């Protein structure tokens, strides 16, 4: 399975232009097309297929820090949504060979089939150091040598703060989900997990499918609703619990969802992940802010403040709940990130809600934190189902 380009030497040139005027000259990878977005980096060594299909990356150009990408191709199972969501993909070196017992196609063929631009052959470590020091930046991938207007194009990319990207990725219509975990994932479950007779309604702010699979593994009924669904619509479905999903961008402009969540609090158990966690934080009266370069990777250490236990977690977020902004009554910070002490978890027992900033469903990443799904089930059981 040799990819059609044996060596990157023969690839056409392409550049990445950043808003600060930096140009990285490399070679084209994937579709030969212009593409702008917020340039971010991910430190996972594997899991590029999950990363590319994660709707939370919508509007972003993702750089992988791991130097060789594509060695196991792309398969039908490891997707987190129906299509590639990233605006562009930057890697050091595409693998010239790929091999996977589950079959599939090459990463590059897949990107081309979905017209997704990529760039390879640049000093990705230099780019990451720049993003780390300066903060994430707007940028554009351009085929060719990049003209005089390259930097201008980067600066024309809309800034992510204040932008509602949820509307671009949420489902248009409600749907039901009943697919449980893939066989490979099932091996990681604790023994004795049985489907509880609960009806869960999940808000789709850009939901990752592995979250749905994890929920479907544990409850008998799972209904997915668009981000714009009101509290009344959801309560009318008589759910035993409501789930708030991950999603892209800034939570603040997603005011319709924040309002809906306010209407649900105290009436039904609520569990949020990632953007869902930020939306819960805002609904509880807190504030959010943008991190310099975010958390994107599969080895973020998170401390449970109740038990002192550390989970190594999968993360993908550029915004964060401000701990100091949380109102004192009932809400408490339950988890902290050990790298930078930012908020990773919230809980308000009286209002029957909790949330985590990281990804218990992994995909990609370690399964340390899957117990949060079980906690959600326990919370629903406690409320008498």
């Amino acid at each position, binding site marked *: 399975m040799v990819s059609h380009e044996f060596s990157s030497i023969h690839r056409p040139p392409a550049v990445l232009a950043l808003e600060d005027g930096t140009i990285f000259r490399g070679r084209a990878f994937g579709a030969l097309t212009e593409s702008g977005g917020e340039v971010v980096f991910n*430190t996972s060594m594997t899991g590029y297929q999950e990363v590319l299909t994660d709707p939370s990356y919508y509007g972003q150009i993702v750089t992988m*820090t791991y130097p060789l990408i594509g060695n196991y191709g792309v398969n039908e199972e490891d997707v987190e949504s129906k299509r590639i969501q990233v605006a562009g993909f930057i890697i050091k070196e595409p693998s010239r060979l790929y091999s996977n017992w589950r079959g599939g196609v090459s990463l590059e063929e897949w990107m081309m089939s979905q017209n997704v631009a990529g760039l390879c052959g*640049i*000093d990705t*470590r*230099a780019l*990451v*150091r720049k993003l*780390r020091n300066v903060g994430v930046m707007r940028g554009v991938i351009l085929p060719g040598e990049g003209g005089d207007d390259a930097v201008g194009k980067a600066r024309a990319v809309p800034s992510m703060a204040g932008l509602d990207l949820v509307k671009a990725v949420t489902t248009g219509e409600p749907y039901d989900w009943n697919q449980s975990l893939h066989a490979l994932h099932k091996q990681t479950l604790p023994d004795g997990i049985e489907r509880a007779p609960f009806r869960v309604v999940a808000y789709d702010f850009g939901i990752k499918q592995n979250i749905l699979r994890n929920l479907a593994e544990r409850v008998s009924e799972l209904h997915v609703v668009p981000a714009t669904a009101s509290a009344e619509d959801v309560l009318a479905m008589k759910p035993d619990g409501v789930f708030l999903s991950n999603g892209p961008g800034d939570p603040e402009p997603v005011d319709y969802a924040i309002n809906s969540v306010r209407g649900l609090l105290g009436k039904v158990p609520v569990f949020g992940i990632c953007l869902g966690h930020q939306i819960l934080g805002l609904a509880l009266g807190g504030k959010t802010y943008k991190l310099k370069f975010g958390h994107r990777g599969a080895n973020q250490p998170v401390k449970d403040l109740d038990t002192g236990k550390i989970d190594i977690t999968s993360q993908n977020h550029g915004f964060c709940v401000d701990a100091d902004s949380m109102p004192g009554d009932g809400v408490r910070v339950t988890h902290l990130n050990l*790298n930078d002490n930012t908020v990773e978890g919230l809980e308000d027992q009286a209002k029957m809600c909790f949330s985590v900033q990281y990804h218990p469903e992994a995909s990609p990443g370690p399964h340390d934190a899957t117990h949060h799904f079980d906690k959600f089930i326990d919370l629903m059981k406690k409320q008498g189902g």
Partner: protein
Amino acid sequence: MMNEAELKRRLQDAKEFGFSDRQLAHLWGSTEEKIRALRQRLGVEPVYKTVDTCAAEFEAYTPYHYSTYESESEVSPCEREKIIILGGGPNRIGQGIEFDYCCVHAVFALSEMGYETIMVNSNPETVSTDYDTADRLYFEPLTFEDVMNIIETEKPKGVIVQFGGQTPLKLAVPLENAGVTILGTSPDSIDLAEDRKRFGALIDQLGIKQPPNGTAVSVEEAIAIANKITYPVLVRPSYVLGGRAMEIVYDETSLANYMERAVEASPERPVLVDKFLEDAVEVDVDAISDGESVYIGGIMEHIEFAGVHSGDSACVIPPRTLKPSTIDDIVEQTKMLARALKVCGLMNIQYAVSRRGGEEVVSVLEVNPRASRTVPYVSKAKGVPLAKIAAQVMAGKPLKEFNLPERIEVKHVAVKEAVLPFVKFPGVDTILGPEMRSTGEVMGIDTDFGRAYAKAQAGAGMILPGPNPPKEKSQIIISVNDHDKPEFLPIAAELARLNFELFATGGTFDYLKENGVECQRVFKVKEDRPNIVDLMKNGRIALVINTPLDRESAYDELALRRCAVEQNVPYVTTRAGAQAALAAIQSDLKNNLQVKALQDYFQTASA
């Protein structure tokens, strides 16, 4: 023809793919120097990245770097005066961890003197490549290209090549030719010590003895030399590492065979033919010199017979059997050689002391103007940090300023033993010879030789029995050649007295019986059963004493030694080794074991 831009692109691509200048020279029919010059003219230069274990997500302060061909360098050389220390690269037989000890001590000493220390080494398992040993670490291969790139980036005051063993030492001449300051002994002196002809002339001039020798580029020449200096002869290619491809040959057929098959001799790479001094005791000396003063770090007497590679040979400090006058001779010759070679830093000399009648005659076997693998052992046995002192001497501090005593008399005995990997290599013969086979070494230290030797053996994985052994581990096999038999008689008698059951093969059995030593006959493998190997398999053998016989019994010996290795039964292959084992058994270490810290041996000495 490619234009410059295309050529640069091609070169950049090749370097990104990891081709060395030397490989490119080979592929493009050029020379390493020319490729380097072209590369530099076109601006295709490496950059240095940092090993941070976090993919640059966070700022790291580890000064731990590697080169690559990319756009951004993360290294900015500082303004302090710096010294680069070259390490030994990957550990392998002959290039051991002992050299890493020397490098680390050199780093510490130079750091104390106020220099910025820069370590270059490519072995992640070592202390020199801990990120906090040197001020800065380059995790790079020890090749001219990679070292030179670092030198051009860092611009050090000088480079130290003599602590990392043969690997960095080989770079001395190319680096000096490229204009780099080599600290310590000059590359010319290194060459003088390694070049047979130049060294021979120097020895003659100094009036120091050397075993008769010659260099040959053909079978005929080798035979002619051997006939002149008489067999047995030690043959080896010039410039060897770890005694690779060395052999002792006893006759013309073997010599011709060696010349034809083992070595490709050429005028550039002649074969060295030395008279092999049988029954000589080998002595190793580690010394430091600044060109004028000389400090004798330690004199080590080997326990194995001469001809066993010094890296495999057990040895003892202080010497056990040498006459005081012989030690004086050795000290004197060491000083003469150090001054004549203008040694600056460490040197190691191997001597052979042959005994005729009551006379002891000292000859020089080899001079290495560099740190040897015995430096850590000698430093610990004597309580003087040789590598640290040598590094400071190389950086310009006169040896006199250290106020070292002329000789340090220690009250204890320190035995070094080689750790041999035979158990991991099924089928390999375990007999020791001029080719180095050990993969490490241990030191046993105590108040007398027997105990120190027993500890060293235990450290190397061979637990020797004590006197009056339990019935289930009370048997000793003795099988020695005719030449050795008289020497083994008192050893065998003493072992019998200590209540061991002796088993001996045909000739040895007859000899011991005739001389009144109680023992039982055991068959050789080809004679009958139960034979010597069957006996071993019963598991009651505590020790095997077996010296090489003739070619006919080689199969027997191999089977016996293999079996001993597999069952982890101590075995000795020399008379000196058997005497040492006896001393260890007599010391009854097992029943008299106490703990004493290494530091405690020296506290009383300095108090």
